[in-house]
């Protein structure tokens, strides 16, 4: 609509305001009339404008007069105003759909895409004039949303220094790494078409180190990745920074969980990912090096080291490298990334906070129900046998099991429903010794499995994720328990490549 303009009310230390600013920059870059009002002092506002590379006019709000007149409760709040400065639309917080609708109102293309690493929405902070006044000076803002980071420093090794020993000594990883020489890192940066080395792709929890393309490349070189792997590493870093995955918790927990990467789509053959026999093992450079690159990024940029912030009591061998590709060729159903809304021809990476694989052998069952029944008994042990709350599981079906199941006409949803309806813990297990999961039994759902009263192990069929992987010889599948799951823990995230 002609004559409309956008006014944003911002604070310099509000994370949501920092999150929304690059999108406002995009709108302003499209010549849309965008202005903002900062509720903060001139010096911090000037610093905010510099840090965030703000490309629209920012005014101040002395005495919060404008904020009070508009009735601002939350920052950011976006106001769409007409030519008489009447409010046409008012939107508090950050919401990608809202941003795109406003872009449309201003006659522009959408500015927010689903897979740019930012959450779909995020609530804001309370407006400054409504804050409880305290004696504290406002804390310096963490620079969490700048899009351009610092160039990595370099070190020139003395002639007699063995680069491998230098890497052991300084980067402190227990395994040898490929020394990240300037030449190797630049070779990978040249493969990162459309990206600048200093572009910040994500901030890696829990210490929120900047994953610039250059830092990602340095770690990927160390892990042994080929330069072309950078096109997988960039969406992978975005997925790690996705608040739904909650790497902050996954990386600091005392639990067993480690981020498992699942690769889907044409990139599997393009970069030689392996999805068949030994899929969880050291079978292919692509799987091993991508999994290891993720671990090095988490350690070196995220800062959760296994002798420090990563508090896992027993750890997980997956923390060396944990990356599989789905065997889509042996999968009669839709592969994982298609379930998550992507096209089959689109490549994708998925992250799941997983325990180590628990093998299920079933060589004698001849029916879908028989095979799946065996898997329910492994599913029943996820987390702790009597606990029926707050976790998920990934079932990796081997091709031989898949053939038996599909031959009986089961769809993927049938498989999920069967596992959901047939996995339970008998009520008799809750008599006797108290223990984990017993006190919560009032919240469990009682069902009957084979005539025996049980508590249903999972909360919903969707708590059971299914992929097909592994070799065609051997009637095996695997169950991988999750970390604390759902919006209060870690959610599986899928990013297109």
């Amino acid at each position, binding site marked *: 609509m002609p004559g409309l303009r956008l006014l944003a009310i911002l604070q310099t230390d509000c994370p949501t305001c920092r999150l929304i600013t690059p999108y406002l920059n995009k709108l302003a870059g499209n010549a849309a009339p965008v202005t903002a009002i900062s509720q903060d002092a001139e010096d911090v506002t000037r610093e905010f404008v510099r840090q965030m590379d703000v490309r629209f006019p920012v005014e101040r709000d002395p005495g919060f007069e404008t904020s009070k007149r508009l009735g601002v409760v939350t920052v950011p709040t976006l106001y769409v105003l007409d030519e008489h400065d009447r409010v046409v639309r008012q939107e508090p917080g950050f919401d990608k759909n809202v941003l795109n609708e406003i872009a449309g109102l201003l006659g522009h293309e959408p500015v927010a895409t689903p897979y740019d690493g930012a959450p779909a929405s995020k609530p804001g902070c309370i407006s400054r004039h409504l804050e409880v006044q305290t004696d504290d000076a406002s804390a310096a803002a963490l620079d969490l949303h700048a899009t351009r980071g610092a160039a*990595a420093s370099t070190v*020139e090794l003395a002639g007699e220094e063995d680069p491998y020993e230098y890497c052991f000594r300084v980067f402190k990883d227990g395994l040898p790494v490929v020394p990240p020489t300037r030449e190797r890192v630049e070779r990978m940066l040249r493969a990162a078409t459309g990206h600048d080395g200093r572009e910040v792709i994500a901030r890696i929890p829990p*210490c929120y180190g*900047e994953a610039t393309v250059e830092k990602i490349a340095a770690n990927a070189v160390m892990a042994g990745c080929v330069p072309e792997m950078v096109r997988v590493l960039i969406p992978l870093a975005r997925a790690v920074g996705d608040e739904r995955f909650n790497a902050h918790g996954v990386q600091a927990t005392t639990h067993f969980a480690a981020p498992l990467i699942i690769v889907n789509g044409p990139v599997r053959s393009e970069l030689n990912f392996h999805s068949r026999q030994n899929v969880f093992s050291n079978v292919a450079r692509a799987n091993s090096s991508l999994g290891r690159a993720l671990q*090095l990024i988490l350690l070196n*940029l*995220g800062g959760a080291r296994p002798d420090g912030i990563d508090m896992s009591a027993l750890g997980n061998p997956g923390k060396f490298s944990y990356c599989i590709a789905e065997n889509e060729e042996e999968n009669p159903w839709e592969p994982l990334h298609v379930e998550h809304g992507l096209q089959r021809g689109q490549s994708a990476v998925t992250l799941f906070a997983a325990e180590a694989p628990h093998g299920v052998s079933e060589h004698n069952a001849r029916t879908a129900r028989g095979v799946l029944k065996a898997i329910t008994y492994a599913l029943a042990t996820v987390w702790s046998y009597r606990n029926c709350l707050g976790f998920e599981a990934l079932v990796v079906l081997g091709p031989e099991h898949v053939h038996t199941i599909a031959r009986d006409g089961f769809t993927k949803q049938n498989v999920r429903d069967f596992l959901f309806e047939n996995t339970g813990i008998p009520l008799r297990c809750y008599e006797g010794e108290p223990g984990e999961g017993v006190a919560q039994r009032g919240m469990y759902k009682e069902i009957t499995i084979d005539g025996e009263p049980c508590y249903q192990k999972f909360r919903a069929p969707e708590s059971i994720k299914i992929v097909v992987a592994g070799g065609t010889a051997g009637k095996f599948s695997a169950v991988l328990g999750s970390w*604390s799951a759902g919006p209060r823990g870690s959610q599986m995230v899928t990013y297109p490549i």
Partner: protein
Amino acid sequence: MPVTLVNPMNEIATQAAPAAPRLAKLQGKTIALLDISKPGGSVFLDRMERLLKERFGVASVIREMKPTFAKPAPAGVLEKIRGADAVIEALAD
């Protein structure tokens, strides 16, 4: 030929925050008890609240709870305990 390596580590300087000054006495103070919502946390904090009031004469106790132990405390929770003289956080399990 000299070898030049690109630093793969996080280079953003972090500052160690000094620990808050210890309270000389608890008498008359406001103490916040933060439950991170792990099982058993409330048992520990209920007992702490009683002890603080009965034995140490604290003026008031603020009880707050994180919605989940798996994520950092949201700003709203921190705002509610900001005025306290000291905070006791219960990790529990």
